[in-house]
C-alpha cells in the first residue's frame, strides 16, 4: 500500500514541479474567457451555455498534460523498475490516476468558480456544476492516463491523444453539462466509475504491450 502512496505522491510532486498544474488551469480559464468574447455579453445566453462551456474547457484542459503522464516514465525506465519490484502495471496506472486527479481536479474546481462568474452562471447552478465536476473528473483523469499509456512512444502522440480520448469523454460531457436534470448526476457517476475501474487495466495492458 505504501508503495502506491509513494507513486501517488511522486505524480503530485512532478505535476507541481514541472508546472503541469498551472498550465491546464490557466488554459481552462482562457477557454472560459474566450466564450463571452465570442458569443457577446448577453447574460442570459452565457448563463445557459455556461455548464457546457465549462465542461468542454475542462475536457480540453485534461487533455493537455496527457503527454507527460506515462511516456517519460516509459522512456526513463521508471515503469520497468516498478514492474521488477513486483508491482502490477494496472496498479501503478491506478496510482497514477489518483495522483493525476489530485494534481488537477482541486485547482480546476477553484478555477470553475472564477469561470462561472465570467460566464454569469447563477449561484444556485454553481453547486450542481461543482458537484458534477467532482464526480466526473476522476473519470477524466482515468481516461487521461489510459490515453497516455496507449499513445506513449508514438509519433505525434499529442494529436493522437485527442483523437483517442475525446470520443470516450463524450458521456461525461453529456451527463456533466446537464447536471441539474434529474438522474444526470447518477449517470455521470456510473460513467465515471466505469472509467476509473476500467482504465487502469487498459493502461497496464498498453504498458505491457509497449515492452515487447
Amino acid at each position, binding site marked *: 500500500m505504501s508503495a502506491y502512496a509513494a507513486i501517488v505522491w511522486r505524480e503530485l510532486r512532478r505535476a507541481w514541479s514541472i508546472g503541469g498544474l498551472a498550465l491546464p488551469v490557466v488554459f481552462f480559464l482562457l477557454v472560459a474567457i474566450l466564450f463571452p468574447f465570442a458569443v457577446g455579453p448577453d447574460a442570459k445566453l452565457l448563463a445557459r451555455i455556461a455548464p457546457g462551456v465549462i465542461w468542454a474547457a475542462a475536457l480540453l484542459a485534461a487533455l493537455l498534460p496527457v503527454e507527460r503522464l506515462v511516456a517519460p516514465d516509459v522512456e*526513463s525506465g521508471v515503469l*520497468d523498475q516498478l514492474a521488477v*519490484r513486483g508491482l502490477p502495471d494496472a496498479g501503478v496506472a491506478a496510482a497514477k490516476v489518483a495522483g493525476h486527479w489530485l494534481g488537477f481536479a482541486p485547482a480546476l474546481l477553484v478555477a470553475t468558480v472564477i469561470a462561472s462568474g465570467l460566464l454569469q452562471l447563477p449561484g444556485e447552478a454553481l453547486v450542481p456544476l461543482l458537484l458534477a465536476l467532482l464526480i466526473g473528473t476522476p473519470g477524466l483523469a482515468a481516461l487521461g492516463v489510459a490515453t497516455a499509456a496507449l499513445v506513449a512512444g508514438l509519433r505525434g502522440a499529442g494529436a493522437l491523444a485527442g483523437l483517442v480520448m475525446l470520443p470516450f469523454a463524450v458521456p461525461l460531457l453529456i451527463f456533466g453539462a446537464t447536471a441539474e436534470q434529474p438522474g444526470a448526476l447518477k449517470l455521470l457517476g456510473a460513467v465515471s466509475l466505469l472509467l476509473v475501474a476500467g482504465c487502469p487495466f487498459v493502461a497496464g495492458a498498453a504498458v505491457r504491450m509497449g515492452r515487447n
Partner: protein
Amino acid sequence: MTRLALEGVACLRGGRLLFEGLDLALAPGEAALVSGPNGVGKSSLIRIAAGLLSPAAGKIEVEGEIALMAEAPALDPELPLGNALGFWAGLDGRRGAVPDALAAVGLADIARVPVRMLSTGQRRRAALARVVASGAPIWLLDEPANGLDVASVALLEGLIAGHRAAGGIALVATHLPIALPDAREVAL
C-alpha cells in the same frame, strides 16, 4: 533459497530469433557473464530474466527479489540524487540504505546535486547505487561498465564480488571486459 534459473529460453525480437535453448542456473554466490557483439540479445536476456519480456520459449524460475540496472537510469532528473534514490529505496523499504550505497559507488559527495547535472558515468554509478541499496539478492546488470572510468569499473567489480560473497547472484551482460572470478560464461 535464492535461485535464478533459465530453461530452454528462446528470444524472438522483431520476427528474428536472437537465441534459443539457453539454459542457465545460478545458486547463491554464483555469477554469469553474458557476452557477445551488439544486437545479439544480451539486453533482451536481462529483460527476460527480470520478467519484463516474455521468452518465445522456455521458462524462468526466480526465487528472491530482483534488482535491475538497465540502460535507462529511472531517476527523476529534477530531484537531488539522494532523494531520487530515496524514492526507490523507500519502495524497497530500505530508505536508510541510501547513504551507504552512495558511499559504496563513490557518490556520497554529490547526494544533494540534482540528477540532471550528473555526468554519464555518475548516472551509471547512481543506477548501481540503487541496486546496492535495494538489498535484493539477485542482481541483473545490463552493460554496467558503460561510461565508467577504469577506477569505477574496479569499484563495480568489487561490489559484485562483495554481493556474491554475501550469498547474492549476479547476471551481468556486457561487451566490455569485467573481471568476475569463476563466473559462468554465456556467449550469445
